[in-house]
């Protein structure tokens, strides 16, 4: 009987700990129901499966900065264009100034710096590749989605992978190719870098596979413009094949010797003219289908000749026009201001000052280069009667600007003093900035036209010129389509292969500023001569908008590689930390 108290005590303890509020054991330690989503809950619903793909789209590369840090902050507020002859950066903390103009870039820089031109992991290319694999591997679980649509989503996922691999290919050469979504336990040592040729082939295979299941065009453009089409896949294929056929890899000798060259990771081991043919065929296939259906082509709203500027502006800027084959989206402008850092970095901070060298590349409106005595070019009135694309690419002194005229003379409102970072080269970029007027751009999404139709025409022209040993009539036609749209006349007939090649490269420079085309044109053609050029700036002296102005051309600061050129600059270095994990990354030539 004495023990009943112990029993009561024990029962008391049990009741205290055993009731709902304090269940004994694991039940008490279980997490309260939360709002967490699991992988299963995503792929068990069509809506969430789609949203997962949208999350993968989000990793696609964007040409300008849209954020202050982390994702979408390229080169520390700077742009790839400022490594070319088209623009020059005065941004003191940007990648061009700190790493490239100074020559301080090396493989250790890639370990941590966010200012390099394309970081192996910080550009989130492998994030996009992984997300695409996860979709491809799991979409079979989604119950409320038909097979055809599943195939379309898978094809879109493959296109995301193809774009990321293309970027890696163009910055690094042969890539480390993943075949599924890996887990940390997997053995990465079995994943070597592919050769350059195998990389190209693998990207082309992705495009070919995607083509089958992608729609030729988007039917509901207002809602879904921006998703991949069959035309997107054909366009990317043409771009990657042209790069692959170019002399950087396709030559009788590597651009620089090294282990990676010996393993054919950054060289094909010899020259193969058929690679040009493949590129031409890929472009031709798209041109043929585009022209026969009329769904894709150069945007032209048939406005009067004085509207050529507006026409060309809309061609690169507007969405859903049939001109842009791959349109990449990120931030947009809002009524309250300018939502992306590109505005600040390119304008006041001076990340993207167009060079006078670039201005000189634009021909007269007639199509004649300014060096032609017949062109009518007047050095004392240098901005008159030029290619309309000049005005829409660069803000020039005296051109319209925010309801008035731009004052780019020294002391003017756009260039207060000679030494500031703003308009230091004498020019400001207009492309993608438009009029810098928050109201007129209110609510407009700035898209990145990753590939536009003119590139396909120019790709065909270039490739066939190389394969055939000179320009064909079709090659002329393709270039002239691009020139005629902005009112320039046809190319002069009878150009040699080399002259035609230069004409096409020039056309690409004029058409695609800020679209990340020029850098790759320079490296794939190994244009050491252009890298070693001393670039020019402009000082405009005058007292008021009325002028008279005097124009003083001056030399921009020399970049490191002007006097210390090495072909190693053509490709990026892998982060030394990643190389040292010894899972198959062979360092690129010159960066060992």
């Amino acid at each position: 009987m004495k023990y009943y108290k112990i029993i009561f005590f024990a029962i008391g303890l049990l009741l205290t700990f055993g009731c709902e509020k304090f269940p004994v054991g694991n039940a008490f330690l279980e997490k309260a129901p939360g709002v967490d989503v699991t992988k299963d809950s995503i792929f068990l619903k069509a809506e969430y499966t789609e949203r997962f793909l949208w999350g993968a789209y989000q990793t696609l590369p964007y040409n300008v900065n849209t954020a202050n840090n982390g994702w979408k902050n390229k080169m520390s507020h700077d742009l790839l264009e400022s490594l070319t002859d088209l623009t020059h950066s005065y941004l003191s903390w940007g990648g061009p100034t700190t790493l490239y103009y100074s020559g301080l870039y090396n493989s250790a820089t890639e370990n941590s710096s966010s200012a390099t031109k394309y970081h192996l992991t910080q550009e989130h290319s492998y994030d996009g590749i992984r997300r695409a694999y996860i979709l491809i591997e799991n979409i079979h679980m989604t119950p409320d989605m038909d097979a055809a649509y599943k195939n379309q989503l898978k094809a879109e996922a493959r296109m995301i992978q193809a774009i990321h691999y293309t970027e890696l290919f163009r910055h690094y050469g042969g890539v480390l190719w993943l075949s599924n979504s890996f887990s940390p336990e997997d053995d990465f040592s079995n994943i070597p870098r592919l050769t350059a040729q195998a990389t190209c082939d693998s990207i082309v295979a992705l495009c070919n596979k995607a083509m089958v299941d992608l729609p030729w065009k988007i039917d509901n453009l207002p809602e879904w413009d921006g998703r991949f089409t069959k035309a997107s896949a054909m366009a990317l294929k043409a771009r990657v094949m042209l790069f692959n056929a170019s002399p950087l890899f396709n030559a009788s000798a590597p651009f620089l010797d090294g282990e990676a060259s010996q393993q054919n990771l950054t060289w094909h081991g010899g020259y193969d003219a058929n690679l040009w043919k493949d590129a031409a065929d890929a472009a031709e296939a798209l041109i043929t289908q585009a022209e026969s259906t009329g769904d894709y082509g150069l945007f032209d709203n048939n406005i009067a000749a004085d509207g050529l500027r507006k026409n060309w502006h809309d061609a690169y800027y507007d969405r859903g026009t049939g001109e842009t084959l791959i349109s990449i989206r990120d931030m947009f402008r809002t009524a309250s201001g300018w939502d992306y850092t590109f505005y600040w970095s390119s304008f006041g901070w001076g990340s993207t000052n167009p060079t006078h060298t670039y201005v000189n590349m634009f021909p007269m409106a007639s199509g004649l280069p300014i060096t032609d005595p017949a062109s009518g070019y007047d050095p004392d009135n240098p901005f008159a009667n030029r290619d309309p694309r000049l005005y829409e690419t660069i803000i020039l002194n005296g051109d319209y600007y925010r309801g008035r005229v731009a004052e780019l003379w020294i002391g003017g409102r756009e260039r207060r003093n000679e030494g500031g970072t703003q308009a230091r080269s004498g020019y400001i970029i207009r492309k993608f900035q438009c009029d810098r007027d928050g109201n007129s751009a209110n609510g407009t999404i700035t898209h990145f036209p990753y590939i536009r139709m003119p590139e396909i025409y120019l790709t065909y022209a270039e490739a066939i010129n190389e394969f055939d040993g000179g320009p064909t009539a079709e090659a002329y036609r393709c270039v002239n389509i691009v020139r005629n749209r902005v009112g320039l006349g046809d190319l002069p007939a009878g150009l040699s292969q080399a002259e035609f090649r230069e004409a096409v490269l020039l056309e690409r420079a004029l058409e695609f500023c800020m679209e990340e085309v020029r850098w790759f044109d320079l490296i794939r053609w190994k244009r050491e001569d252009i890298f070693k050029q001393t670039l020019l700036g402009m000082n405009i002296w005058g007292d008021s908008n009325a002028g008279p102005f005097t124009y003083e051309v001056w030399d921009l600061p020399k970049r490191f590689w002007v006097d210390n050129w090495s072909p190693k600059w053509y490709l990026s270095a892998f982060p030394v930390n990643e190389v040292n994990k010894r899972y198959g990354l062979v360092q690129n030539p010159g960066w060992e």
Partner: protein
Amino acid sequence: MKNKNSIKYLFLWFLLLLVSYPGLAQQRMFSGTITDKNGNPVADALVTVKERPSTKVFTDNEGRFNILGEPGELLTVTTNDNLHKSLVLEAEQIALTIENSDELIPVGHRLEQHKGEITSAIGVVRADELSKSSVYNPANALYGKIPGLTVLQNGGTSWNNAPDLYIRGVETFGIGDFVNTNILVLVDGFERPISSLSLAEIENVAILKDAAALAMYGLRGANGVMLVTTKKGNGQGLSVNAGYEHGITQAFRIPEFLDAYGYASALNQAYVNDGGNPYYSAQELSRFQSGTSPFLYPNINWLDEGLRDFGSTDQLHISFQEQASSVRYFGLMNFYNEEGLLGPVNENEGYTTQINNFKINLRTNFQIDLTRTTRLTANIAGNIGQGNRPSTPNDENDVFEALYSTTSAAFPIKTYNDEWGGTTTFPDNPMAMISGIGYSVRGQNELMVDLLVEQSLDDLVKGLSAEAGISFDNSYNFLDVKNRQYQYQELTPILESGVIIDTVETIYGTNTALEFSTEVPYQWRRFSAVGNLKHVKTWGDNQLNSILLLQSEQLVLTGQHNTYRHLLAAGNFHYSKAGKYFADLSWSYNGTNLLPKGSRAGFFPAVSVAWKLSEEDWLSGSSMVDYLKLRASFGMTGNDQVIQNISASPWISGSGYRYGSNNSGAGGYTEGRLASSPLTYETSYKSNIGIDANLFGMLDINLDAFYNKREGILVQTQGSIAGVMGVELPYASSGSVKNMGAELGLNLYDNTGDLTYHLGGYLSYAKNEILDMLEVYRPYDYLKRTGQSVHQAFGLEAIGFFSNESDISNSPEHSFSIVRPGDIKYKDQNNDDVINDFDEVPIGYSTQNPELYFSGSVGIAYKGLGVEALVQGIANMTMYLNTPSIFWPLRGNNNISSFSNDAWTPSTASTATLPGLTLRENANNFRPNTVWYADASYLKLRSVELYYKLPNQLISRLGLNETTLYVRGMNLLSFDEIEIIDPEAIGLVYPTLMTFNIGIKIGF
């Protein structure tokens, strides 16, 4: 089962326990005398017989007592110093000696053991020692008071000023900003912040250091445990104590910034160093110097203008206590008020913007003997605090950031138009931030309750007792903001040939009326339930104490995934033989909701032994050794402070894509960080040996040495997993750290007639080493963090400054940024002719905690007059002097202090200690290197006190007993290398304070 039911059952159970049994007894009167070691009588000691708890007698001034009892029952004596001794009643005359080793020491889970038989490493400080400090947060009374406890001061106002606490250094590292080095602080057995208490309510503070003491805390013990015990009622009859103290506070150190002329000259120098022309002309410089144009060329000492020389504190407490027949209680009220250091705070009608902190602490602790066998403990404590400050966006440190960062030459306080001065470069006018933007009121209400029932079950099983209880705490913080905006005016002189011909005035911002907003930024609730069974068995000269306990805890913080739950089962067997040999076996089985199923619970055992040599026959007669004990322990304990929610990969909604022609986005889902698996707690293997001794009755010696190894520390996996995974990489529980060290405590004391003195010192040494952290590949061994201390400072080794361009071209290429003369020249550690990250070497010591922590105290009293002093210091720690304005000058519109006086210029190149001034981003100079790393060692005079105890014949006439007057200084001096600011708080924050206090303590 419903909640309501559970409460009903709980009540039922309590009621059952209250049923008591009448005893049948053959009582006799026992009488005796209690003396201390030296034969002096011990007065006012409580004498009870365990079997009859309602009978309480106290010894008289000769130490005598008479009590009713029965042979075989257990007599217990407890003194006011918490000395405690028991004796089985036999002879009717009793002579009992009670000594220091009879002190009861808290050993965790509200258990106590006699000091003489403890087998684990525990350090204690008692109230009389703590009361030598004048503090707001009791944690700030702990500097140098317990060997093994590192207390590092931080800056900030009193209510934010929580020092960092480490027990035996650190032996783990967090990831990024995540901190997992927190020690567990328990107040009366339940986890509570020590800052919620006032010093006057604390009886003692103990720290548990080795596995023997910590094993019963399972997953929460590895970083060490601090036990804070509040006061219980003591003594015969009601005693009331009151104390009042007034303090004057002063900033301990305020850095000295250059005046306008000095700043302008420095700026010119920076322009020249950067390859440009001076910014200010000679005429402008002389205008700064002469002060002839105070509005256009001002010279403002912002710290003089913005701060007053002295702040104040007032603290009053009243406590009352008694140990009556069946009730023991302690009650306290403590009032604290502090007025801060801001100067112009009364510029506004109806309110002040002074930084202010007011708080009332309340406490009632009851122990009630409900029946012969049942005791109820009810502790109720709370505090109500309120504070005031200018309504700056974050906290009062915003004001100090502006005061420190705004240059003397920036702008006038107010322009000649009576507008606030300001420029687009320096938009924050410090004086406007003090008096022009309204005020914020911050409040905190906390209530802490615990209720315990202890039931003796002697009648069922001899020596058995049981206890059960709950605790509930709630803390609620709010902020009422009355904010307004101010407009400011920029004055720009227009110069023609150096002469001011006009001034451009530009107004920015607008003056607005006060706007009100309120928020509840933070609250927490904690609920615990505990229960235990204790058993004491004695046979021959053996005794075995056993305990089994269960504990359930829940803490809910604001926010999702912020519920922390723990379940604990723990036990201890304490065996003693002949009062000489002691052994403990402790264990716990502890689970947590922070970890996934399968790895969320752990078993933590520990064994420990002690041998009290001074009880051996061959030593007990020694005149030299009064007390000598050897201890050894080994065991395990854990740490479950891990980042929440990483055991599964979260799939995150958000950042999608923008299709179509509209701005509307299509929502996305992405995969979050990969699941960290297996994810588990840290396990610490701790071993300890120790000696406790007393020589000649006047020298206490305590020596401990330990060796710990921590495993299962959460680390990043970048070093081992390929970076092309394409997703945030998981963490892994695979780090490990070893930690070893020793503590020495010496205390010499004596009293000869009217003179008493004590002289003591503590020295703690703890050195850790990272054994494994899945470190990223390092091409050179000297770059490796593995093998170094946690938070070891790493940086470049400066070998001077570049003197000219040819020096630069003849040196290895410095690759961080383009270098100019005056920039730091580094040693090329790997001789690859490039200075980059691969040239970083370990420099000095850890930047987190010192390896050496020491203190010394001295006290002398003659009759009623006495003096006390405490010094405390640290050594073997490194600090990174990267605070802008104070250490890093000018760049980013920052200020320049006298620290930069030795900056490089072409003419001072040979003596310069700092690189040349620059206005550019300069990644070469401003990075971790030997120029900016400094020795963090200091020796501080923490407190000095002079007191006078009024003579008894005087105060007894006034009806008082024990009345003391004192003056006391806190944080008076520091010897260190930093000199221009307190080495313990180098940020742009409210400064650390030195205080001068005058006070009185009265007993009724």
